[in-house]
């Protein structure tokens, strides 16, 4: 009965209201086929101004991170390294990787350090020019993230942001999004192949991963709260179980006596 009422109510909603949308969205708002603003000025690892037009001349894997990230950025880039190690493509010739920091406080120095450490992780010959780490002022990086539909939000000192690879064609067109923080070499290979042909392709596996800030104080609270809740529920369960055993046995006896 109640279910029917509920069902009818639920069914009527679509008639009344459109889809509610948050003002500022964290996540990916796909911009397949859009061309990134190629004249944007960013800083390379030596602090020199460089425009994306100068860099993008082949299929490009774009990742958006910030370098002091304590969340998913490191696992994401580590998995990208794992993928790059096995992908059957030649870096620097078939494709390149560009990592842009969306945190304006990141410096070219920091970027250079990151680059060095990730290049060290790569187990195959990888021309340094095939993986760039760029930084920039807030206005330029915002323009870039907006153009590719990458929504993130500042949270105190950290950022809440999604994890994804964005594949660009040689002329800077967005052709594919690869969501999450783990990737398959074959997937990347296909994506790069399509980017080379300039064909935008809709995405799959849209389970986005998000990066949250870490709050040590709150964390402590979690554990004590859990402990309390856990011990109480265990206690209750035990009491209830004993109770059932006791009353149940008595009932059994009377039943047997009667039948």
């Amino acid at each position, binding site marked *: *009965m*109640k279910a029917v*009422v*509920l069902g009818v*109510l639920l069914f009527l909603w679509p008639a009344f209201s459109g889809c*509610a*949308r*948050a*003002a500022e969205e964290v996540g990916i708002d796909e911009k397949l086929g859009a061309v990134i603003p190629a004249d944007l000025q960013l800083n390379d690892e030596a602090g020199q101004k460089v425009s994306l037009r100068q860099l993008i001349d082949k299929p490009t894997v774009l990742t958006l991170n910030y370098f002091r990230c304590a969340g998913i950025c490191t696992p994401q880039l580590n998995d990208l390294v794992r993928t790059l190690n096995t992908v059957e493509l030649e870096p620097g010739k078939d494709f390149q990787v560009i990592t842009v920091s969306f945190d304006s406080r990141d410096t070219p120095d920091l970027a250079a350090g990151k680059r060095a450490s990730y290049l060290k992780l790569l187990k195959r010959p990888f021309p340094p020019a095939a993986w760039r780490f760029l930084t920039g002022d807030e206005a330029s990086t915002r323009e870039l993230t907006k153009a590719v539909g990458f929504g993130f939000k500042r*949270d105190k000192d950290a950022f809440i942001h999604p994890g994804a690879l964005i594949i660009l064609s040689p002329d800077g067109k967005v052709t594919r999004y690869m969501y999450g923080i783990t990737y398959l070499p074959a997937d990347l290979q296909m994506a790069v192949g399509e980017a080379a042909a300039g064909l935008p392709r809709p995405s799959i596996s849209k389970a986005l991963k998000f990066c949250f800030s870490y709050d040590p104080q*709150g964390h402590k*609270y*979690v554990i004590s*709260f*859990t402990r309390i*809740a856990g011990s109480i529920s265990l206690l209750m369960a035990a009491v209830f179980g004993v109770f059932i055993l006791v009353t149940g046995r008595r009932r059994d006896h009377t039943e047997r006596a009667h*039948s």
Partner: protein
Amino acid sequence: MSSPAAQAHTDLAHAEAHGQAVHRDYAGAKIGMWLFLFTEILLFGGLFILYSAYRAKYPHEFHEASNELNFVIGVINTVVLLTSSLSMALSISAVQKGNRRLSMIFLAATVVLGGVFLVNKYFEWMVKIHHGLYPNGPELLKRKPGEILFFGLYFTMTGLHGLHVIAGMIVLSILLVLLAKGRIGQDDYIKLENGGLYWHLVDVIWIFLLPLFYLAA
């Protein structure tokens, strides 16, 4: 464990197969109702899981947001629902004793108290909505994430509970009619008892909602 005496049950199936109501399997109907209540408990359980996960994550925000709820209304509503539960239980005892008139009075009181609860709830919601504190409301979106979640959960859980109260009132009203017509009486009151079980469960859920939202400050 021994098999239940089958004669009664096969009688039931027999009667059902012919669309007659000869005998009611009293215990069977009750088991069925309890199983249904379990699904309700787990339905709300999903929400309680979410609540506890988010409260653990945003303890301070939940604390502050809870301060904005008027706990007096919450406590008054608790008293109203507890009293309605009492009159529901009394109604069943009355019908068991064969006092149908008294049973009807108690049942009607239960429905009326349910209505009082909803009216209170309505005013409480309206104040919040008036201040822009509703999901996607202008005021709420300016708040911290934890507070947005608190109010999101507040509206979802009290709203779903409110729907259950409405459903319970409808069921109990139907039972009131059946009671008036004599279709429920001293010898066959399982419907009333099952309706009562549902109402009490709605009460229990509110018992949990009170401290989670109104007294979390």
